[in-house]
């Protein structure tokens, strides 16, 4: 009777988990307004470059060599167009199954708790509700690790998989290889030759592809930093509760700390976990993509943390229940708060309609903040600059000119920059105005307002403005 009851509970837990997974993966489709498409910017540049697959990108930076990771673009270009929007869901589901298998391999006891914590994490929700290179790379990474731990011949396929990851996302690729190194050094010691082969092939493939990109596009060291600096900004892009686009939930992190404490006595048996966690934690503070991998470790440690609090002998059962309740509420709060922000994230309906309007304009080049570049080129127009600054042509010069144009009140200087890049339109939206300028008459805003002979507003709806540059001739 008891066994039957346990089986039933276990089945309900699995069903609940599956339901939660489907909800987490369909968040955007279900809750986001159908007119608002996917949140973020990367989805738009990926879809565009997949549809228009090739080694030349005519719209980014006014036209450039497509020096991007080729993997995701290539895969998406092979897909029928109606599959592309559901790709995040497919990737999410496959990654989840692979992770489940891996947790079984690793003999993680609170498997369901860990998976639940993962599903509820902002990084997971972001990753598998938008199209991004990291989701492809993470799925491959999980597949690589799963194959690597097989006893059968299949393990040799991990060499191919690991060598492909950098072609999808270089950062995730490098970190996956570092984790593979730890895995073979501390856990599957007898697989060192396979690890060395995987590393060697991966480095060779990466060197060949990225060498080719550098040769064709030239390398310029960036003199500006798009990611904000300082401790507050670092934490703000690391913790979702402090406003990160995709980050770690504070309460998941706290639970993970408890998990680590509970594991501390067994640290020498779990060197792989501790080394990987430390590496990803440190890297995650500086490079946000590491958060996607770190998130998995956080979820596992958080599950152990929860279990350790639950199993510990407390003097006061009231405090124990309250602490567990608070931590669970904290996790739920972090998730709900993030979901609310994520669903309402940019681009909003105003921006989408602005993009539609832009699409139908006759001229070509649109100037805006780099963060709007992907949307501009998604609308079929050339941007002056976008977020893909790595290996971009004259990135430093374009950055400087953009900043000059944003903040100058000198119409002659503005004209020079406009002529230099053949700018036809200027795109402004309320969030960009708020981010870029302090006053309503600062820099370019002043020129747009008072130089009617040079600029003409042609679109002004729902916070989006499109200004046409009046020809000086």
């Amino acid at each position, binding site marked *: 009777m008891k066994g039957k009851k346990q089986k039933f509970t276990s089945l309900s837990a699995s069903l609940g988990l599956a339901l939660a997974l489907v909800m987490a993966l369909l968040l955007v489709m279900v809750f986001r307004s159908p007119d608002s498409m996917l949140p973020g910017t990367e989805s738009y540049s990926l879809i565009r470059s997949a549809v228009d697959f090739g080694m030349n990108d005519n719209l980014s930076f006014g036209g450039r060599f497509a020096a991007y990771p080729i993997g995701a673009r290539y895969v998406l270009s092979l897909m029928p167009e109606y599959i592309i929007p559901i790709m995040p869901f497919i990737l999410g589901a496959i990654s989840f199954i692979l992770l489940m298998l891996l947790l079984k391999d690793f003999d993680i006891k609170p498997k369901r708790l860990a998976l639940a914590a993962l599903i509820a994490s902002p990084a997971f929700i972001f990753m598998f509700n938008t199209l991004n290179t990291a989701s492809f790379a993470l799925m491959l990474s999980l597949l690589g690790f799963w194959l690597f731990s097989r006893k059968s011949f299949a393990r040799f396929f991990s060499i191919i998989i690991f060598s492909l990851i950098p072609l999808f996302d270089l950062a995730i690729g490098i970190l996956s290889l570092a984790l593979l190194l730890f895995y073979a050094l501390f856990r599957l010691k007898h697989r060192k030759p396979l690890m060395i082969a995987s590393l060697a092939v991966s480095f060779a493939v990466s060197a060949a592809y990225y060498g080719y990109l550098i040769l064709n596009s030239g390398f310029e060291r960036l003199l500006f930093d798009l990611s904000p600096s300082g*401790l*507050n*900004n670092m*934490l*703000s892009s690391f913790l979702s*509760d*402090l*406003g990160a686009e995709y980050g770690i939930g*504070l*309460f998941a992190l*706290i639970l993970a700390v408890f998990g680590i404490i509970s594991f501390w006595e067994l640290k020498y048996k779990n060197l792989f976990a501790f080394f990987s966690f430390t590496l990803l934690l440190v890297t995650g503070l500086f490079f946000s993509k590491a958060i996607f991998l770190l998130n998995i470790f956080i979820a596992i440690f958080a599950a152990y943390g929860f279990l350790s609090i639950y199993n510990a002998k*407390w*003097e*006061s059962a*009231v*405090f*124990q229940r*309250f*602490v567990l309740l*608070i*931590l669970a*509420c*904290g996790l739920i*709060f*972090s998730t709900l*708060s993030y979901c609310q*922000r994520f669903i309402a994230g940019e681009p909003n309906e105003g921006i989408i309609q602005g993009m539609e309007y832009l699409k139908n304009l006759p001229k070509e080049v649109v100037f805006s903040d780099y963060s709007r570049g992907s949307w501009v080129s998604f609308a079929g127009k050339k941007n002056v600059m976008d977020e893909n600054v790595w290996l971009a042509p004259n990135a430093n010069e374009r950055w400087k000119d953009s900043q000059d144009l944003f903040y100058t009140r000198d119409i002659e200087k503005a004209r020079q920059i406009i002529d230099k890049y053949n700018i036809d339109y200027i795109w402004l939206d309320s969030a960009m105005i708020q981010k870029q300028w302090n006053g309503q008459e600062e820099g370019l805003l002043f020129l747009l307002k008072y130089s009617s002979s040079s600029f003409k507003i042609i679109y002004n709806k729902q916070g989006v403005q499109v200004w046409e540059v009046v020809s000086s001739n």
Partner: protein
Amino acid sequence: MKRDYVILFVIFILTLFFRAMFVSETPYFNEDSAYYNLRHTDYISQNIQPMIYDDLSYGGRYVIDSHIFHLVLAGFRSFLPDFLVFKILPELLFALMIFIVYAIAKRLTENTTAPLLAALISGFIPVFVANTVNTISVYSIVLPLIFYQVYCLMNIDTHKGRFIVLSFLLPIIHPFTAILAISFVFYAILLSIESIKIKKAAREAVLFFVMLVLLMGFIVYKKAFIEFGLYAVLQNVPAALFSTYFQNINVFSLIYGIGIIPLILGALGIVFGIAWERSDSAFLLSGLVLADFLLLFLRLINFTTGMIFLGILLSILSAISISKAISYVKITKFARMKKYIFVSFIVLIILLLGIPSYTSTRKIMQLGVSGEEMQALEWIRDNAPEDSTVLGNIEEGNMIADIAKRKTVADNIFMFAPDRYDDVKLMLSTESLVKATQLMHKYGVGYVFVSQSTRRMYNMEDLKYVSEECFEPEFEREKAKVYKLVC
């Protein structure tokens, strides 16, 4: 024992009388925040619900406040006269600190005299008295509750229920409660450094409290944390104003503010408590001192609030030194003169704490709002169009909104408010008529209120750019002027 309670009650009455003496001198309040609290309490009394959107502050904005304090005041107001609620009740609550200080000191020393003296000291800390008298301050409930929570933790076995209730209440009432969570973490760290095993129940209580404060903080201030990150704790105070908070701080202001007696005896108390007695409670209080220092050092709390908190803590810790001194005197030949020593100590408290408290409070009372300034604001209320905006200095925004009932350009509640600090400063202190009127048009200013406080703040006699064609003096007295913008 009974005699101790009688003495304690006498100290309480003395403290309350000292405070009430100042309060009864004026019908007005010392701080602008008092008018903020008054206005919100008024609103609740009239509408039976808190104000969510404030039409007057910054010309209209959402209010980020849990309003617990206003609800409490509105509750008392339903059966007590306004004078008792707004003038006497805050003083009574501050005076109640005496009992909590006594209770903690008693727990700390198990002596009979030392806790009484510590309670007496805490009632007359100059910075505490001067900055809390005649204000309707949320700290009147926050400080007693914070220290009571400390007492509950010290007696967690018997006070668990109260500890839990307060843990839920405190973070909602005021974010200053975070200091307690940080202190508890310091307490745990200090004990672990000293290899002292923390009582299991206390450890569980600390964990519960810290987690709850974090959760409540992130729920209540979610929007602020997402927008400002960790800087949310600075409550969006403009950088220019923030730098002035810690400008005139030196050792002498510290000694004068806290008082030499609690400063020396409290510091000795920490040494005795930690190094000699290795008392759990002393570690807890030292954790509070450390947290206060840390937050002051990082400028995460207002300097005055930090000093008040430190003063109370040191007065509690003084009990340890006093208790040691009493024990020492008992075994020396001075034991015969213990009455004289006691009287001398009381005299010292009067000289070094009572008198500075009186003078600094008197000084602050003199700098408070005058009758003429109130008349000026009442004139605006009775004569200015209802939708007009009044410009005053940033420390008067709430008073203008409450008394004149008109829109303000800015006030000192900065969270989610547009940054207008520099513009207000420029409008009031510039010599350029063009600059001033440009900004006034931008903010729709109809009237300018020039008070004594504005004159002092910008070191001027009157607005430097006033001209007949642009500004009509509508109300003119020695201490207050109201100009109407006509150009």
